[in-house]
């Protein structure tokens, strides 16, 4: 209570003061949670929260800087996860000794041939094919490319799944895998952006959510690449694992603390570097141009800015961070489970983080990400406690206990998330730390 009274005397309208007050409140909350949950669990919580903050930063580049609606956060996170599996998972000798690589090579050739065919059909107007004929040719080219590719990939996939299980990884350092995840996400973002960035907001939202579902369906069912629902686990860490510390004779409970905080330190270093650059970019001419495009793209266009090109740039940059964050989460959790990705836990939670924190303000997004993640995590045990009390109360009234408290309490998180976002939109639409626009008078 005294803190609240003190906060009232402080000028909360001043952005810096507001940020300091809110961040101190966040640290108090972190300490409180750490005190209740213990050091090992808070290491888990903090590392995951920071990885989500990295992803939220990526979304902030897209939505906060550029006003681009990206509902494909989950898809890009999955892409990053699958990439880190491919790069850092131990080498599967069974696959490399079998016919698999050759068959996959043939499938790749078929894919390239298909790409060439479609490209040719797209440029067929140079040969004098026009109008309806060109459309027909294009459809035919797509169909043939699809059939050719399927005719090569299907047997290859079936063969790999029946002999080696899955492709396995390259056994490289996970940090390379994170970078690779960012790269693959960038390539996919480029393609997606080229297709859909011209669309108006509602259409863009639906198109991106559709693309993210397509990515999910692909990664879930391409067992030969990602092992599908059988999950790829355990993933190696770039730092010492708890088991490594245990081998050195450190007790089990402490080994988790060391390992998790080691990972946290590495992630924090990466985060600080990324945050520095993202923040600098925002303040510089590039950031001003992006805000100009966001606030009035027609005016920006008439000033000679390449609106769609710049938006594509933002979309790719943001997706790189999202892909990297997804890869880091997979490495940290040591498991890639395509079935575990849900739009609610991934796409929408990140959106809530950005909106509640303050779109356009990187400090706000960091605050929002950590706060929302803590709320997401602690609303389960809190709901469980409430339900247990209610249950004993209803039992004492003779109504019987509440069934399935565990699974119901887990769903409380979704409800709480929904309440938070609607309340935030109504009472603080610009977020806890709103974007500060400096204007020279």
């Amino acid at each position, binding site marked *: 209570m005294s803190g609240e009274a003190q906060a009232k005397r402080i000028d909360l309208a001043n952005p810096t003061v507001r940020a300091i007050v809110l961040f101190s409140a966040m640290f108090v909350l972190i300490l409180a949670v750490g005190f209740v949950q213990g050091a090992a669990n808070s290491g888990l919580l903090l590392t995951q929260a920071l990885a989500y903050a990295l992803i939220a930063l990526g979304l902030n580049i897209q939505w906060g800087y550029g006003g681009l*609606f990206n509902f494909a956060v989950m898809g890009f996170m999955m892409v990053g996860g699958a990439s880190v599996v491919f790069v850092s998972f131990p080498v599967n000798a069974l696959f490399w000794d079998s016919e698999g690589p050759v068959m996959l090579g043939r499938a790749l050739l078929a894919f390239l041939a298909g790409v060439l065919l479609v490209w040719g059909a797209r440029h067929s107007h140079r040969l004098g094919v026009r109008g309806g004929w060109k459309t027909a040719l294009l459809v035919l080219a797509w169909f043939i490319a699809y059939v050719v590719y399927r005719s090569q990939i299907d047997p290859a996939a079936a063969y790999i799944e029946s002999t080696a299980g899955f492709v396995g990884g390259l056994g490289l350092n996970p940090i390379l895998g994170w970078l690779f995840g960012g790269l693959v996400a960038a390539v996919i973002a480029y393609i997606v952006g080229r*297709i*859909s960035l*011209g*669309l*108006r*907001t*509602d*259409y863009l*939202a*639906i*198109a991106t*959510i*559709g*693309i993210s*579902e*397509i990515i999910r*369906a*692909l990664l*879930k*069912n391409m067992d030969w690449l990602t092992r599908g629902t059988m999950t790829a686990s355990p993933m190696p860490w770039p730092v010492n694992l708890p088991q490594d510390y245990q081998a050195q004779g450190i007790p089990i409970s402490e080994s988790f603390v060391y390992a998790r905080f080691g990972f946290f330190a590495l992630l924090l270093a990466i985060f600080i570097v990324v945050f520095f650059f993202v923040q600098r970019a925002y303040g510089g001419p590039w950031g001003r141009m992006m805000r100009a495009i966001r606030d009035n793209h027609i005016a920006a266009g008439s000033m000679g800015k390449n609106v769609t090109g710049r938006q594509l740039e933002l979309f790719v940059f943001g997706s790189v961070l999202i892909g990297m964050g997804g890869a880091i989460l997979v490495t940290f959790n040591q498991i890639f489970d395509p079935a575990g990705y849900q*739009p*609610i836990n991934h796409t*929408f939670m990140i*959106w809530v983080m950005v*909106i509640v924190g303050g779109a356009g303000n990187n400090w706000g997004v960091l605050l929002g990400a950590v706060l929302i993640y803590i709320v997401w995590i602690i609303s389960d045990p809190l709901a469980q406690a409430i339900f247990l009390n209610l249950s004993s109360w209803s039992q004492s009234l003779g109504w019987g206990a509440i*069934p*399935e408290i565990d*699974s*119901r309490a887990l*769903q*409380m*998180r*979704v*409800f*709480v*998330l*929904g*309440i938070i*976002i*609607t309340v935030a*939109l*109504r009472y603080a*639409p610009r977020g806890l730390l709103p974007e500060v626009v400096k204007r020279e008078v």
Partner: protein
Amino acid sequence: MDELVFFINRVLISGTVLGSIYALGAIGVTLIFGILRFAHFAHGDMMTMGAFIAFLLASVCTALGIVTPIPSGFLVLPVAMAITAVIALGLDKGFYAPLRKRGAKPVTLLIASIGVTLILQGLLRLIFGSGTRSFYQSEPKEIFRIDMSALGGSRPITITEPQVLMIVVTALLVLGLHFFLTRSRLGKAMRAMADNADLAQVSGINTALVVRVTWIVAGALACVAGTMLALDVALMPDLAFNIILPIFAAAIVGGLGHVYGAIVGGFLIAFAETLSVFNWTSVLRPLNDLLPEGMALPANLALVPTEYKLTVAFVILVITLLARPTGIFKGASS
């Protein structure tokens, strides 16, 4: 003949049922978009909620021992529709109307609808758990078999009683909506407001009333669509969340804001989905006799593996957005 019967059973009947569900959902989405100008993502959860309300009412009916020739799921439908419509009005009053009053952009409303999605889904799972339920615990599904032996077929055309009722109910609702929109004053006001909200208000149309009616119609139709989906598949809290995307695809393919487009789009998406996962070998098998040795058809000749059924809707969506962003019928432009 057997191949044709197989085709009818597998494609025509299930495609029509799925198309009815998509169409009813897409009408609601398209109406809300036309009047309020935002993509209502919570529509899928409104469908699920309607299905759960119908399920509760049907359970009450069974518990009271009310037995009728039609399945209880359909018997309680009017009441469930009314309740869902009232809840839809409440959702608008509680979540969307304050934002509209503040003059928030449509994007904010879209994000708010995500919030409503989360709230509804969380609540449904809190109350009903995450398990699967069925409408047919107390009463069996009646199956009609149309004997085709007179035409030389050995297998009958099979259609269940709920499926027949679904198609009939959809036809009646669509017809009713058509007369409402073209003949009644309110329906005409709705179309006017969808065309140009400011002009409609200036010409004396009570826009607040039109908004209310939109929510009532959308909520009631969502309830029917959700209940039908639950009758066709099974009832679970994330039932409609997976189906909201094909519904959006249907609304966009038909042209957002265009009611008849939504119906056409719904059936188009449904048939595209069923046809693309359909195993063509089962129909083309007689060709094997004509084809030379060694050229026999493969055992599975589906265009898309069943796991990727959902992606078909998006591929159609993306092609539509690229080639004709306004949809088949001219809807709101992108």
